[in-house]
């Protein structure tokens, strides 16, 4: 196994959202702006990396029959850490993400990677896998958040700095929940289209 290709795999083939269709709830709920998208993926990445390392390190000690409850407890511990750190140091982000920070604990991406990868591979590869999946998740969230923020408010601002603004009437629809479904539906169709083309070319 080559570490770089393992990392890339998390972004492309095994992308959490478009490849494996895991973790849809946070993907749609917190992507009203790029700021929220970054905050959410940072929290998820921390939990994913820590839990992958811990599960991988303990994989020889965890009995197979009770592994899932143990994974959940490991994940819940790290989520509690993220929850408290965010509340203490990033109160505005904490308020914006609301109930979705504690809900990282039932995010299928994390338990999915623990079960499918960290439980079978050593710590180094589990770390690479967690980094790759986190990067894939971050990219998707920023993409969806960017599209929704751009069309919904007429500009993109990252942590208070205005980056882009376009002269349109803001489409409030995109910030509300239907916009999230519409964006991910269309993005998924585009991904399917690209995949089908790649397959047809024999790649």
């Amino acid at each position, binding site marked *: 196994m080559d570490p770089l290709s393992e990392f890339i795999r998390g972004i492309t083939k095994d992308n959490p959202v478009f490849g494996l269709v895991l973790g849809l709830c946070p993907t749609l709920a917190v992507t009203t702006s790029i700021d929220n998208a970054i905050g959410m993926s940072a929290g998820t990445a921390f939990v994913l990396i820590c839990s992958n390392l811990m599960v991988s390190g303990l994989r020889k000690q965890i009995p197979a029959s009770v592994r899932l409850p143990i994974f959940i*407890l490991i994940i819940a511990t790290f989520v509690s850490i993220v929850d408290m750190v965010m509340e203490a140091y990033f109160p505005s982000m904490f308020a914006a993400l609301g109930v979705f920070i504690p809900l990282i604990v039932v995010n299928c991406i994390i338990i999915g990677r623990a079960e499918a990868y960290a439980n079978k591979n050593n710590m180094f590869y589990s770390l690479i896998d967690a980094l790759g999946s986190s990067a894939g998740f971050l990219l998707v969230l920023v993409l969806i958040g960017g599209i929704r923020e751009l069309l919904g408010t007429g500009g993109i601002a990252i942590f208070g700095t205005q980056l882009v603004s376009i002269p349109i009437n803001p489409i409030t629809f995109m910030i509300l929940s239907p916009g999230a*479904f519409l964006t991910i539906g269309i993005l998924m169709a585009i991904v399917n289209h690209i995949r*089908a083309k790649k397959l047809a070319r024999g790649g």
Partner: protein
Amino acid sequence: MAADVSLLQIFMDGVFIKNFLIIQFLGLCSFVGVTKDTKSAAGMSGAVIFVMTLAATVSFLIYNFVLVPLKLEFLDLISFIVVIAALVQLVEFVVRKNVPSLYRSLGIFLPLITTNCAVLGVVLLNVLNEYSFIQSVVFGVSAGIGYALVMLMMSGIRERTTLVNVPSSMRGLPHAFLIATMLSMAFVNYFGVIAL
């Protein structure tokens, strides 16, 4: 803070205005996963209403009578997860022993609920909104009803559109998401039905 919210308001919030699936995006895995036919959607909805109500009740008792007196509020997440997992197991045992026909129809949906974020979401929102006991239970029931309503609508539409000739790259999930867009547009209009 939440003592003055009427029960009707909480009920309408749970079912329509803050619908779990398409306004708050909680429990989407089952929303796209088990809405391919109405029968499994109905089974899942029944199981969720049941577990949500129980989880809201039990977690309120645990939070207010165990965690708060012991000043262990920071353990809320871990204890709620354990409570829900235990509850699902318990429900599974009881249903399997006493109502085997219901157990067969709920089948794999019961264990799936443990990782359904809608159930944990109800419990966490109850704590966040500082609901009283009655309010928590009403919120649990109404969130379950709202979940069932949308699951049944979605599965009905998806069943009827399985034979529709959509472009090949739109087939499956993208198609389901576009249906969800329409449903969600309808539900957004419930904002302000009751003055908030």
